[in-house]
């Protein structure tokens, strides 16, 4: 629960940074890489290094997509769907064929 709360706060801060700070450094968006933003990077990394059975990666994807939708002109649900599809793809398809070490606490 604590981990998810912290991740929600981080995602909110990242959404604020994406819409107010990083837009001034528009190298990636100039080349149409809209989806290469810090929130999507966090979602991908989270789901890559999380165990397949855990559900928190999907929740992180949902929250990240929600914040992106709130601060963009898209309808709420657009980025959420993309983020969840990415998370599910990593969990159900990608990790089935590629072995990635999960982060465990000692």
């Amino acid at each position, binding site marked *: 629960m604590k981990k998810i709360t912290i991740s929600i706060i981080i995602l909110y801060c990242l959404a*604020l*940074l*994406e*819409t*107010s*700070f*990083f*837009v*001034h*450094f*528009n190298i990636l*968006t*100039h080349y*149409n890489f*809209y989806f290469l*933003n810090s929130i999507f990077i966090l979602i991908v990394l989270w789901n890559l290094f999380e165990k397949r*059975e855990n*559900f928190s990666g*999907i929740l992180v994807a*949902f929250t990240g997509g*929600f914040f*992106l939708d*709130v*601060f*963009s*002109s*898209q*309808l*709420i*649900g657009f980025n*959420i*769907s993309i983020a*969840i599809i990415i998370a*599910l793809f990593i969990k159900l398809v990608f990790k089935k064929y590629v072995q990635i070490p999960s982060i465990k606490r000692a």
Partner: protein
Amino acid sequence: MKISLSRTSRASRRNKLLIKIVLIVLVIFALSFFQKPLKTFFYSVSAPLQKPLWKIGESSSEFFHKIIGTKDTEGRIDDLSLKNKELLAKIAFLNEVKEQNKFLRESLNVNTDKEFKLTLAEIIGKDISQDFIIINKGSQDNIAEKMPVITKEKILLGRISKVYDNFSKVMLISNEKSSLDAKIQEKDAFGLIEGKGNSKIWLDLVPHDKDISQGDLIVTSSLGGIFPSGLLIGEITEIRKDDTEPFQQAEIKSKFNLKEINFLFVITEQ
């Protein structure tokens, strides 16, 4: 026995995942009904943080830009000083025309000066898809959809596309969904300005018999009914003339730079 147990556990796990996915879909569906209150709430909460972040981003990007751009500075200074001289000569000529115009208007007793009713606004955010900006004025400040947004130099930025209580979204003229009628100054030619995304603007539907050239200024025309006429849009940088096409096209360089704009104006009454 063991095999059947593992099969049931696998099936129950699959069912659990399915239930969770269905739940998420339902939540997304429910959220779409609360778009406006949700966005208004988050914008109001985030505005005090977004303003300083926007300013910090602006100053730091300028800093990096200066470091990278020092090589070209000398050449740019020469170009600008040359352009400055040309503009000074043009201003002197226009001042004389203005005086004559004023004299003629007074003698004919005609008042043609256009004054807009403006509302001052500040940029607090930019959409990640780039061709939208968020300003700190909304329906509480009498802002409505389709109102034109300009800079203090009367350069057209775009129009209001969505209004919330304290905030509004401005669709820039470079947005792919944006199109407006425009006039090529001093050429008596009209065309259609279309946004191409990523701050790119194109002028289309200019007849072949109209002679347009690089550096021509494009201003708004009152044909569309949304924008008042005479607002500066940009300058022609490249012309595409193809005999197989019914019209000629031109690439436009917009005259505004969002990084340099701190305040903008919404035309609430034309």
